[in-house]
């Protein structure tokens, strides 16, 4: 018996099982529930839930507030992900070099990510204050950062980029450090400069990891909630209201579980599509 169990324990399925169980419990059930709710009309203030098929999605299509939130989310994701990857990559390459205090710097670079999001958001809210905020003080401006329809979104982006760049930097640093120094040595001997070393060694070997970072940051940016909610609450005038914030308001203020779940499903569909597009694009680029 023990022999059989041991044998079973060495099969691929046994190695996949623990992760599958945890994922199944924590994410599978809630997601199925959300999918079911999105097909139902269910208000906590109303009567029993009823199945309405795709009605919620039809309603979404003509919901101006949904499209506004979608536009805000796309803009936020695009700008913040581009900035995070650019800055994160730069930091990673820098920190891979030898210099005094390198160890401490690698810990320092993780600090923005290490602060609880709500604390960081309050911190930045404090700094963005139009009257006694340090940002206006240092820049000599009097911009109403969080209360201006144009600036508010960019203020939120700046804060999120600051917070999430360490995630990118750390992963890319780890990737960069797994590249054997012999390769760089050989390139140097061949007379290649830093740019060519980057193009022919670093970039191709980092690309798989870059894809992962891109995917996870896109998913993260698409789902952003805490940071913006604390900073602006979705305002002013819904100019920073993202899909997650809109879903939150529908679920927890309007108490419409069906419609709110439909918004969540819409987020899923959008993110899945974008991710699939990434993978395809990068596969083709590799060829």
């Amino acid at each position, binding site marked *: 018996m023990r022999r059989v169990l041991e044998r079973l324990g060495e099969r691929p399925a046994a190695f996949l099982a623990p992760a599958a169980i945890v994922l199944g419990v924590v994410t599978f059930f809630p997601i199925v529930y959300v999918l079911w709710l999105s097909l139902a009309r269910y*208000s*906590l*203030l*109303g*009567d029993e839930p009823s199945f309405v098929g795709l009605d919620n999605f039809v309603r979404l299509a003509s919901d101006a*507030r949904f499209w506004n939130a979608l536009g805000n989310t796309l803009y936020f994701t695009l700008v913040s992900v581009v900035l995070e990857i650019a800055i994160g990559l730069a930091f990673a390459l820098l920190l891979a070099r030898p210099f005094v205090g390198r160890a401490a710097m690698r810990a320092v670079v993780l600090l923005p990510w290490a602060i609880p999001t709500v604390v960081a958001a309050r911190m930045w809210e404090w700094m963005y*204050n*139009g*009257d*006694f905020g340090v940002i206006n003080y240092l820049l000599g401006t009097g911009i*109403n*950062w*969080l*209360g*201006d*329809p144009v600036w*508010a979104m960019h203020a939120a982006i700046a804060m999120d980029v600051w917070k999430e760049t360490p995630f990118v930097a750390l992963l890319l640093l780890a990737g960069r450090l797994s590249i054997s120094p012999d390769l760089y040595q050989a390139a140097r001997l061949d007379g290649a400069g830093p740019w060519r070393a980057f193009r022919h060694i670093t970039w191709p070997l980092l690309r798989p990891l870059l894809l992962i970072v891109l995917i996870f940051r896109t998913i993260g940016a698409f789902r952003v909630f805490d940071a913006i909610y604390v900073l*602006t*609450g*979705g*305002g*002013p*005038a*819904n*100019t920073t209201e993202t899909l997650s914030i809109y879903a939150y*308001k529908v679920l*927890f*203020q*309007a*108490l419409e579980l069906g419609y709110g779940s439909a918004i969540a499903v819409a987020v899923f569909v959008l993110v899945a599509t974008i991710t699939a597009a990434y993978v395809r694009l990068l596969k083709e680029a590799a060829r």
Partner: protein
Amino acid sequence: MRNAIEALSRGLAVLVAVLGVAGCGDAPPAERSDERTIVFKHFRLFGDPAPFAALLREFEARHPGIRVRAETLPAASDEQHQFYVINLRGGSRDFDVLALDVIWVAEFARAGWIADVTGLLPDNEALFAASLEAVTYEGRHYAVPWFVDAGLLYYRKDLLELHGFSAPRTWSELAEAARTIAAREPGVHGFVWQGRQYEGLVCNALEMIWSAGGEVLDGERVVLESPETLRALEFLQSLVAQGVSPAIVTTATEEPSRHVFGSGRAVFLRNWPYAWTLFERPDSPIRGKVGVAPLPHFEGHESASALGGWNLGINARSRHPDEAAAFVRFMTSPDAQRTLSLAYGYNPSLRALYADPELLAAQPHLTALRDALDAARSRPVTPRYAQLSQVLQSEFSAVVTGLKRPAGALADAQREIERIMAEP
């Protein structure tokens, strides 16, 4: 590295074991069969925890066999609301008494989450009219008023006197005074209030709308779109547009606006009564210079304040409804309210306490506050208030930031709210 991994797995095993032990060891002592524990869920009371704890012990002493366990929630209203929605919808029986924002009562009652407590209220005359209205749903009462709040106008007595103005009675008087004084005093803004897109903005805007003769609902009918409301919204938009208010009000909540006024940088402030004690602190730069008055109104109409505050409700699925009822009765009694008011500065819901000598000595502004509370109006009491508020917040924010013209915002709000109220 291999050693590290094996050490890690051993550590993981230890961790799990520790967790198991820790989980067991920390379980609350099993209830004795003759003892019932009720759980009181409330927002964080800022200040010395001793008076509150003493009050709970006093209740336990008077009711042998009942134990009270107080559990705190973050003070942010939205976070509390979200917590309750998730827990109560999930049928939680983990708490018996809960503190409810005035605007949630009809919603929770409709959803079946809180119990009918009509028998627990004091005589109707003992409470403020708006306060009573807020806890009534379909003729029954579902919560007992605990603390109350009303919007007030704070002003700089010294600056007004210096420049020859008296406390404004109408909005145009206020705008005039604000503009004039701000122009003459460098670094001082005119009128600060809460204009961020959140619930506070609805309070600010409704106060103006009511004082112009407008209203949101008349029974189930939506009467928002009216010349009176339009007049109020146009005034609201003009505040920032014409420099009566600084641009920062579009992102201000209670505390940031209080800070601006409290450091001497504004002539007028609309805020809740809590700010008074802070302005009169020894280290306050404006100590002794602050006056309090009812909010201004438009010509031909009356001043109006938005009612704020908290009520106590009982979980409909509580295992100990009788004990919970006793606790609620105790916490809303005059003695308990007096104690809490003195210790934490919250305003009692019982009208008689506003003439109480002990309270008046500690908070002299209570008289002005009582007048404001008598004139306070409750925000629309409907289970769909949260949804209404979402619409109002968006539209009012668009008006305040100049993104929409008042007439357009009003039409959009009317249409949306009609749609919401038409839902079954």
